């Protein structure tokens, strides 16, 4: 996992949203899974330009939260999203 590389959403996914909850379908592997609202917010921040570090910084400012906790949560999420081939690094 790369903290400073740009994050990109995979071309092999389709997304369904309802409020902030998100359903992701990886049609290459035929797998789908649901993201909760926190993960949905983070997914919205992926624009091909931001890195994990950028996202942690935005979330820390936006939610005035503990950086260490936010960093851990974001790291865990992206580790799983990378494993599920939802995101990759540019």
């Amino acid at each position, binding site marked *: 996992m790369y903290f400073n590389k740009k994050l990109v959403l995979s071309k092999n996914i389709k997304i369904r949203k309802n409020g902030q909850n998100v359903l992701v379908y990886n049609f290459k592997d035929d*797998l789908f899974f649901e993201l909760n609202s926190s993960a949905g917010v983070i997914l919205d921040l992926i624009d091909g330009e931001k890195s994990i570090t950028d996202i942690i910084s935005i979330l820390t400012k936006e939610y005035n939260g503990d950086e260490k906790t936010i960093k851990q949560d974001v790291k865990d999420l992206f580790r799983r999203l990378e494993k599920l081939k939802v995101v990759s690094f540019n």
Partner: protein
Amino acid sequence: MINSQNDFNKLLLQGPLQVFLGLTYNCNLKCPHCYAKNKKNKYSLTLNQINKILQDLTKMGVFKIVLSHGENLLYPHFFKVLHNIKKYNFNCTLISNGCLINKDIARKLKNYNIDKVFISIDSAKAEKHDKYRGVSGLWNKATNALCFMNKIGIKTGCATTLTNLNYQEVEDIVNLAIKIGCKEISFLTLRTNQNINLELSNDQYRNVVNKIIFLKERLKNKINILTHDPLISIMVKNSNEYKDIWDRIIQENQCGAGKYFLSITPDGNMYPCNLLNNKLGNINDGISKIWQDSEEIKKLREIPTKCSDCKLVDLCQGGCRAFAYYKKSNKDPRCKKLII
């Protein structure tokens, strides 16, 4: 932050993720295990009906359409429909017996951007496949079809229904699929309420499932081996040896009937999946309305009452609803017999 797909919720109430759509029940074969054989050659959807279905499914946020039920390549406007499916941006898989896919049709499928094609293969031996399906030369046509498509870069898979005629040759069938260049092989559990003497005994089924899961792990870098039976996750011996693929085994075998799968048949009727005969309604009643309001479909989304106290229910979710339906049971009647 990532939830499992077990809980039915607002996101799924919007619409199924995958729809099995049959354009026609026409078929050029007479396979004994076919779930649609009583309806063969009887119905086809019109182009207008299909376009209305595609519009409705788009509004519902459906991701994927699997063309199944009959031999859809016999539908006279097949490529017009495929064009429309892709125009609406659906992922599309075709299930076919392969006998109409020559080089030209393969190229056409590629040009129309089909995402995946599954071809039925019952045996690694030509004569056995042909005898079973009642058409001489079919195995050659089916395997050639796979070769044509693989050569031009269409993602393909073999679809094999497990019966007492082929369960001993699963490894040979997997090796054949690899040799041909398939990326996937899908082993289907026979589900039928017809007495066709092809069913496996419980011991045979348990053994073949364990063999398939062993091959799935061993060959995971060569081919994706799929199974589709919610009880498989409680039948696998030594599951700790399959740590790398365990999440996938559970997910691939979840029953999606009425939760994230919907089946629309060539007569316009709607069912929770291809193998369940409990009609939910007709497309004329409104696909979205039935998906959201049908009492029948709501029942399928609940864990069977008899399973609610079972410690394994998180794995199997109450098992396959088709087996329960055929045996007029609330839960999958195979559970106690197959559990290890």
